[in-house]
């Protein structure tokens, strides 16, 4: 247990730090509710004037979009932003001297931050339910969804880690990161179901790591991925988790040797 103590402390500190921004959290809930209203209007209008795609009736589409919105409360937290800040301000050198595994410490820090934003899920859900009806699947499906969501959280963390890790060489990654964020929002299935993409591109997007973040858990939730395919879907996600974690590990090893001092 003592091995984990410092990491739990990191998570608690991050939680306390992030929890001071109460108004921002409230604004987050407001923004989610506003966007749930927007997507209800959007999909209702689209379904009213067009032929519905097979296998995805309006209620499933609205469920998909709303659950995606609630997931984004947690997934849009960049838990590894701290790497960039520590690099710029020099704190990273101190961290490297401490008797801890630094990437684990940052992961704990990220989890602590995420917990605060997870608190916004319940009020957001309650207010959203005033606007939309959400399908509730069976308990086993929910369990599979939670597992898949956890794997997606991991992939998301390491994709962010890789982005922020680039700062070891460039010191500034904000631009690159925003670009990756916008592209990943589109290709992860957060904005639209990936099945809407046409032709070969529609098949290719499923082969990218981004699909493991939003698309897989959401498709499990609304039942497009049936129980007999859960195992395959989860294994693919786990493979992405291992791949991105492995790449992060390699990057970290190369980076720790690369720390340079830039002025005071």
């Amino acid at each position: 247990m003592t091995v984990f103590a410092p990491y739990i402390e990191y998570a608690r500190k991050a939680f306390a730090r992030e929890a001071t921004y109460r108004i921002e959290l409230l604004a987050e809930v407001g923004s989610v509710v506003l966007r749930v209203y927007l997507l209800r209007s959007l999909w209702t209008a689209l379904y009213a004037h067009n032929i519905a795609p097979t296998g995805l009736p309006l209620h499933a589409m609205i469920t998909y979009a709303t659950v995606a919105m609630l997931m984004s409360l947690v997934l849009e937290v960049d838990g590894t932003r701290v790497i960039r800040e520590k690099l710029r301000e020099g704190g990273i050198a101190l961290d490297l001297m401490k008797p801890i595994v630094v990437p684990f410490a940052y992961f704990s820090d990220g989890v602590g931050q995420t917990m605060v934003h997870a608190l916004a899920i319940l009020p957001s859900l309650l207010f959203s339910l005033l606007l939309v009806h959400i399908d509730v699947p069976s308990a086993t499906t929910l369990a599979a969804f939670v597992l898949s969501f956890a794997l997606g959280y991991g992939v998301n963390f390491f994709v962010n880690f890789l982005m922020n890790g680039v700062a070891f060489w460039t010191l500034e990654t904000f631009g690159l990161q925003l670009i990756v964020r916008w592209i990943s929002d589109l290709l992860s299935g957060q904005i639209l179901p990936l099945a809407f993409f046409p032709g070969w591109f529609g098949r290719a997007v499923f082969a990218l790591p981004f699909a493991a973040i939003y698309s897989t858990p959401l498709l499990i939730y609304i039942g497009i991925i049936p129980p007999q395919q859960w195992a395959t879907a989860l294994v693919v996600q786990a493979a992405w988790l291992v791949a991105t974690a492995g790449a992060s590990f390699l990057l970290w090893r190369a980076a720790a040797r690369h720390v340079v001092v830039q002025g005071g």
Partner: protein
Amino acid sequence: MLAAYLQYWKINLLTMAEYRADFFMWLGFTIVYHGTALAALAVTMMRFPSMNGWNLREMFFLYALWMTAHELHNALFYNVVYVPEYIREGRFDRFFVRPFDTLFQVLTVPSRTFPDGFILGCVTLAIATGVAGIHISALTILVIAAVVCGGAGIDLGISLFVASLSFWLIRVDTLRWAVMSLEQDFTRYPISIYTRAVRIVLAYVLPFAFMNYFPASYLLGKHDTAFGLSPEVGLLTPLIGLLWSGISYVFWRFGLNRYQGTGS
């Protein structure tokens, strides 16, 4: 004052020539930002060809009209956003000791604002106008230019109003952010998809609908199905832009006279 303003832009453009890499980086940024938004729209509308009677080409024009007006606002008036920060940090008071209008001084604080987004907006709007099949004549070009200027005026009016509130309130970030997300997300679609209360807000309270929905309806020869207004309403945009920025300027002066500083 005009001479000083021209001097300001001359310096800006010289900076741009000096930091060419920066300029192209920002341009790349803007392209990806609007590119992903348009891609999401295109993918959606390949599956659902009609959005309350608007097709993809018309939706593209709707977006391009808002984008150009918004980017014109960003190029000329973006500094207004920093006013709450200036006030909070006590940096606002320096504007009182100089012999220029305070708002003018705010707008000309050097901040390396490149008009990259506006340039991109003009190109996009030109393409969208052609694609949407609008009959191009000297008159339509004049109308579109006037609508873009009016739209930027509406944008300025609203952001100046929010900024003026910071003469009384210390933190307006959350409010500003809510208004901004309302603008960015809700102007993407014809306002006829929303419920009546939201339509009224977008048309009469925060008149974002005049940045694109009403003028686009007029230029594309569409019936307004949101309120059943005559299409010529779309020609009022420049007037509303003038009115809103005028009212906000009066409000700004009023706040300025009450202003006492935060003591920081």
